[in-house]
């Protein structure tokens, strides 16, 4: 299926179910989504609504139970783990709520990592430029344990952009930060995004952050619906807390040896 050249992501009839001991749990109900290149999209919803699960699937980290996912014309729903890794290396950037920096690497080395994996030239120079852009040039040799939460997230942002991804996925990027720091991080994120012209897909429960995106969609009990009205979102989140069963993310994991 060839997408319109402007469409960077297309999701059709996507579902996700998980089998537990007792029964099958439907995390995502059939949904469609189309994202144009260069757009910024916020996926909002209460905890347990399935937004992080949706993000995992459209980012190529997980497979849907049914439906189609095309990213840059590549059928992610048909790809195996290796093929999806390759897609991520080429086209995708990530920012996580928990930052997910490698503790044994310095700030500079963490930023260089995606560029090295992609085989880019001069990863160190690119990394230093980005480190300066996020205002951490003097912290290049510091380890994550020596950085504050906000500083770690800035490093994570720099890491996400070094490989000049076509699309950037951010899962609650300000979730672990205080309001002021979170706001600063959001500014940085959108500024660099604008400079690089990256498509941005953001998962958040922060209505202010969601409002900064060009589009917003709401996840509610595994159902996706689109809205442009930020107050509606705020009302949804404040007055209608959604209580759902724990999602697959919270499943007990098998023990390790």
């Amino acid at each position, binding site marked *: 299926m060839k997408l319109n050249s402007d469409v960077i992501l297309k999701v059709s009839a996507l579902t996700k179910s998980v089998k537990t001991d007792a029964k099958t749990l439907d995390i995502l109900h059939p949904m469609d989504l189309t994202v144009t290149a260069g757009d910024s999209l916020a996926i909002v919803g209460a905890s347990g609504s399935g937004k992080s699960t949706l993000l*995992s699937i459209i980012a190529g980290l997980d497979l849907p139970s049914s439906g189609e996912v095309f990213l840059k014309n590549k059928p992610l729903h048909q790809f195996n783990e290796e093929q999806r890794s390759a897609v991520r*290396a*080429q086209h995708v950037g990530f920012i996580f709520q928990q930052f997910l920096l490698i503790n044994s690497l310095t700030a500079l080395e963490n930023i260089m990592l995606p560029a090295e994996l992609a085989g880019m030239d001069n990863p160190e120079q690119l990394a230093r430029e980005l480190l300066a852009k996020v205002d951490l040039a003097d912290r290049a040799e510091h380890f994550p344990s020596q950085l504050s939460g906000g500083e770690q997230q800035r490093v994570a942002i720099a890491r996400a952009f070094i490989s000049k991804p076509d699309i950037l996925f951010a899962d609650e990027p300000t979730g672990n930060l205080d309001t002021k720091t979170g706001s600063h991080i959001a500014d940085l994120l959108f500024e660099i995004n604008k400079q690089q012209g990256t498509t941005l897909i953001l998962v958040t429960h922060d209505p202010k952050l969601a409002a900064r995106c060009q589009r917003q969609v709401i996840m509610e009990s595994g159902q996706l619906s689109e809205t442009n009205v930020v107050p509606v979102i705020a009302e949804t989140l404040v007055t209608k807390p959604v209580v759902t069963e724990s999602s697959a993310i919270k499943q007990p994991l098998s023990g*390790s040896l």
Partner: protein
Amino acid sequence: MSYWHKHSLRLLKHELKRGELTIILLAIVLAVSAVFSLSGFSSRVKQALTAESSTFIAADRVLDTGSVIDPTVLAKATSLQLIQAQQIQMSSMVFTDEQMALSALSAVSDSYPLRGELLVSPSLDAAQAVAVNSPKLGEAWLEAKGLRQLGITLGDSIEVGVMRFKVTGIITQIPDASFSVFSSGPVVFINDQDIHKTELIQPGSRLSYKYLFAGEADNITAFEQWFKPQLSDNQRWYDIKSQNSPLARALTKADKYLSLASMLGIVLASVAVAVASRRYSQRHQSVVAVFKAMGASKRYVAKLYCLHWSLLSVLSISLGLIVGYLILNVGLYAMRDYLDISATGNMAYPFLVAIVTGIICAVSFAITPLKELVQTSPMTLLRGRDNAANNSLLTRLMSPMPSLLAIFILLYLFSQDAVLSAALLIGGMLVALVLLVIGRLFMSAGRSAGSKAGKSWHLALANLKRRANENAVQLISFTIAIQLLLIIVVMKNGLIDDWQKQLPDNSANRFLVNITASQVEPVNNFVESLGIESSGLFPVVRGRLTKINADQVTKRVSKEETKSADNGRRGVGRELNMTWRDAIPYENSLIAGSWWSPEDTRALVSIESTLADKLDVEIGDDLTFQLGSEEVQVVVSSIRKVNWQTLQPNFYMIFNQHVLADFPATYISSLYVPDEATDALQDFLTQYPTITLIDVDAIITQLRSVIGQVSIAIEFILVLVVLAGSLVLVAQVQASMEERERELAILRTLGASGRLLRNSVLFEFVALGALAGLMASIAMELGVYILQSRIFEMPGSFHFQYWLLGIGAGASFVGLIGLLSCWRLLNMSSVTLIRRTM
């Protein structure tokens, strides 16, 4: 049930189910099972080997005396439930109608032999030989060569003293055959009740009374402790170990090796417990922080974890005992064809020492980690910092003390040797310190910002350098484990090589004695014509050492027959067999003085080193000998070290030719006679009936068999030590798994291919293992040198050929275990990895 009780049980149940406690469980099970099986196995093997080798002296203990013993001694032995036998040995002429010969007469009691077998055949067919005790009254048994020498056959009669005996059996195996080349004549066995009828025992007769004792080890020891202080000058008390025979020395070394291997195995298992405990504590910090944040007191947490750990320990120790018992029985079953090991026996000691070991392992190595765990502050949750980072320097220095003390106790428990235990512990700590420094230097060398993560090797080496601190600790564990394993392998092969060198395949298997001067040339011609390997012909002159400088020998050597545990060689105070040589003999080495040239006409002697020490003789001393009716004075020109283990004639005193050439001498030689030359030798000897042939084949075969059995026992224990080392490696790899899991999750998310990640993990562990193997090889050389020179009394040597083994084994083993440990993670999907990380 109180809440802390419930929480503790719940915690244990969940953790066991999730496999979180597997390493600790396995480590304690291994330590307990290793101790149980090793101590049970090695003590049984030692007992069996000792029993097997006791056949060399036909008993557990022998009293050799010149006169009849006090009956109270025998009564004491009886009271201790020891079995006894008596043997009277003397040289005597044996007559037939046509011939006569000087024989080694042995009159034995009905219970002889107490160990081993006296094999006698009722016919000329040696294959029909059966194990017997003593001949019937009026009957005699001879060796085949004796029959030939006397020109008789089975059923004929011989005269011994004034009594006639009917020859009813041919001796094919004597358990305590005298291994002295200077005993001459055929062996004749009669019943000890017949000896008095021969009227050979007269006042002044030279004979030897041997009293043989055997029984349970404790009873033998008790009897020995009672009797030895009563030994008089003309009595000799010995067991197989004090015989200073090749076998005795081999057994002593094997004993030490088994103990050493066992101790090292226990140390390795303990290290595994220590590593796993530390990881356990780190994993539970957040749990304890949550408990305390919710209001649990320190006491509550302490009780919870003490019960949790106690239950885990009881379970592990019980499993360890069961596994140890199974291993022990498998090992004994495997050895059943080689050694007569009793399946039953004293299990109490191995059982108790295994339980004590398990408790020490479970408690001592966990004290520090558990203490830190109980002291975890709820702030750990907020700050995300490791507890240990808050400890003072003193606390950090003192924290390994319980573990070190525990290792010392374990070593002492097993070795019963405080000095050896302390030496091993301190040596180990020094080695660990040096390794830590070297390892850290290796890891940090060339640390650069770039990882070039696109290629697996570069990613692997970059990871090694980045995790320098953590890797340095892992490196020490790997290095010590590989080093210990290398030491075991090198020592095992060294011991076996040492033994095999003494008994190469073409070791001498025949001795010719009593060769006259006129027979020298025919013997030489015969040996050369058949191409038989020979030690050459040694002239033998008998004489007595009478003076050292101006001192009479009786003054210096009145106590030479000591009552010490050695009870070894008899040197002086009786006639010595002496020889002359132009060149220093094979396996003799000079340690002082110089050897003479063949043209040297001075009266010189070279003395053996232990005798020189005993007599306090130095270079330049004058020695006076009585040779027949003549006195000969010589000067000590050299002192030699003799390898008494070689199967060739060896002498305490060697003169230069000028001194002894004019004295009447007989000659002796040792030969290696291949099977195909046996008949030719027999035919030759029929022309020279006065030459005595001593066949040592049977003794050598027995010796080789015992050495082979010991080697198998050593290899069995090596397997257990390898398992212990493997567990340390697995525990260490597991300790780094959480960090590795997180990194894999991130790298996977960022698009690293599965192949890149697998290869980088493999290469990282291979590089770590190779580095550990190299360092282990260097450390091994030092350790082996100390062991060889100080403990095993072997010459020190380098073992460069094992370096490749160390590096290769380290790289393969650590690489494989690392990759297998990470395999599950490497094959997980990105989303699963991320979820596990969060």
